[in-house]
């Protein structure tokens, strides 16, 4: 390294030193500390005591842990495809040149601007079994078949589907990303496809989707990460971290939270956090592997 290189290195480090300190103090250190705590008996209030892999060993036998994992995977498995379907469909619709398009785009994006607690309170009323607008609409429809709508959040069988439905409300962000990608698809590809006799559906399937596949891949990964950590809306709508009714909405992050902050078992909760981290890494790698052949980075 020449003297010049050294000077550049020093200056470069000096310029990003603030960020480095922030990253170190607020991200790297807590992450590494939580790794240590996951091998310790730690209540936050006293110094941690090393207990080896005991926390991980206990997790294997913790049936509520497995239940929370199952609940979470069911939620991810339902909300992720639904979210992608809704956001891509909306983006495609909002990409057709009808009038007042800017207005429609704004309308469909608006829900994403509502704070999560406020929208949770709103959905709480939508799902209300007696006065809720959803059941007011469903009741006459289902009466034709002689059944009544479920009570949603009050019913252990329907609470998860209700939260999945609600998740589609927040697709605005990914919708905007899809919309941007759609506008990048070259017009001439559609034209030549049309000349080759492709209909609407075949143009979507063979031109649009391959062209926006990197964005689909990106949104898929973000969706996996986000929905595995689902917390706030459940905490607000089911009244705490119990996963009411009957633990049907006890998701991973809720169980982790109550273990850490109600039961003061931070070590155990740290172990859960690390397993969640590994799970997210694993699913992301899997998604990358599976989509390798289907994601096209066009010029």
């Amino acid at each position, binding site marked *: 390294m020449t003297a010049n290189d050294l000077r550049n290195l020093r200056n470069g480090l000096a310029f990003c030193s603030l960020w480095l300190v922030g990253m170190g103090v607020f991200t790297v250190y807590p992450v590494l500390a939580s790794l240590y705590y996951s091998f310790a008996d730690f209540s*936050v209030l006293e110094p941690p005591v090393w207990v080896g892999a005991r926390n991980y060993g206990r997790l294997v036998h913790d049936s509520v842990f497995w239940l929370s994992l199952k609940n979470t995977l069911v939620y991810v498995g339902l909300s992720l495809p639904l979210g992608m379907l809704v956001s891509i469909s909306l983006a495609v619709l909002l990409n057709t040149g009808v009038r007042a398009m800017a207005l429609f785009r704004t309308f469909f994006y608006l829900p994403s601007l509502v704070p999560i607690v406020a929208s949770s309170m709103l959905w709480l009323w939508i799902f209300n*079994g007696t006065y809720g607008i959803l059941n007011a609409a469903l009741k006459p429809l289902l009466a034709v078949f002689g059944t*009544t709508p479920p009570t949603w959040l009050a*019913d*252990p069988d329907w609470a998860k589907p209700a939260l999945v439905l609600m998740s589609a409300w927040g697709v605005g962000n990914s919708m905007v990303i899809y919309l941007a990608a759609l506008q990048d698809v070259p017009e001439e590809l559609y034209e030549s496809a049309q000349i080759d006799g492709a209909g609407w559906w075949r143009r979507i399937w063979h031109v649009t989707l391959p062209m926006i596949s990197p964005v689909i891949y990106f949104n898929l990964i973000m969706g996996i990460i986000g929905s595995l950590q689902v917390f706030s809306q459940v905490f607000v709508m089911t009244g705490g971290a119990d996963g009411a009714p*009957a*633990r049907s909405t006890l998701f991973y992050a809720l169980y982790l939270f109550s273990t850490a902050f*109600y*039961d003061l078992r931070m070590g155990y909760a740290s172990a859960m956090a690390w397993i969640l981290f590994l799970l997210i890494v694993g699913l992301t790698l899997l998604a990358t592997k599976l989509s390798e052949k289907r994601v096209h980075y066009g010029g």
Partner: protein
Amino acid sequence: MLVALLLASCQQSDGKVHITYWEKWTGAEAEAMQKVVDQFNRSQDKIVVEYLSVSRVDQKTLVATAGGDPPDVAGLWIQNIYSFADHDALLPLDDFIRREGVTTREWLSRYYSVYADMCEYQGKVWALPSTPTTYALHWNKAMFRAAGLDPERPPRTVQELDAFSERLTKTDPKTGEILELGFLPQEPGWISWAYAQWFGGQLWDGREITLAKRPENLEAYRWVERYSKKYGLDRIKAFTSGFGNFASPQNPFFDGKIAMVFQGVWMNNFIRQFAPGMEYGVAPMPTAAPGLERFTVADADMLMIPRGSKHPDQAWEFIKFVSSHNPEASSQKELRGMELVCYLQEKNSPLSHWSPFFTESHPHPFIGLFRGLAESENAIHSPKIGIWQEYGREVNSVFENVRLLLESPPEALQFAQRRVSDSWKIHRESLVRRHPEAIAEKDPEIRP
């Protein structure tokens, strides 16, 4: 410089010591406590208490204590005492009490014994109550009259409760939909964790978790299960899904959907606010086990000094003030400390002596009943065990699974028993590791 800044922030220009007091209350309840704080600040010229309403105050106190900068006084809940004490997060009050020239026994004898008992754990005093409650049966007299029941005669046994409930229940003759219901164990179910004890059972014997070990506990959950079976789970779900928030006119007790509920001393306050003019009565909970007359659940808001408080002596002075009252008070102006806050919050006082004004001019028309229940020998409070947060959640899960008919009572109890016993084992292991000396004398006295 940091130290200088810190010092400057406490020892302010007025030369007084400023201490921080974190409390859960907002609104009218906070205003009531603020009046007592003002009274204390005026009563002497050395200490200024700064009241701060803090949401989720237990978790914030926990984090602040772990970070070494807790408030000087924290207003928490009873279950926090035992877990915080187990984790060395509180200062015991014994030395402060002895400094007043009395023994802790003498100090605590000023309270009704159920409240005194909450404060003591592992042979030490960790907290003192601010405002308390006891739970009682509240019933809607108009609904009783409409159902042909004597509106002045509440159910006295659990069998009567069930029978009255049936009389009070109205269904739509065509659809079978429930329109009104006499009683539901889960409405509002705030003391559903105590149903086992109400039936004469026990959750904790001082050494072990006894959730699935007492036949009375099973009896209690069979009773819960019977309600779902009798009135139909789906019909109950449909009925309860229309209930509004507790603090709203759509509260099912206020709008005449549920005729009987177990509630605390605050209920009168809410009725005046959301259902003015409602005709209701208050009586002890019906007897569910032979000999367990006048059963009640007592609860209290608790003042504690977190470990790491910068001004423990001044904190004690404030707690002492809140724990005192003017025994001679004959007007609202003369109320002091405990009686002032309990009067303004319309609650009973946990102190066994009440001043003439507090007794006679209390705004709650049934205050005597709540006072009497605090004296009952069958008054219980949540178990004194460091893992009660978790245990209580498991008990709640048993209750949920049973009432939703997802599990039979024995199954649900066995499952929770295993889980909580495991947690207790782990908790006890870390206690032993941290306090090998304390554990020998650790098995404390037991409340039935």
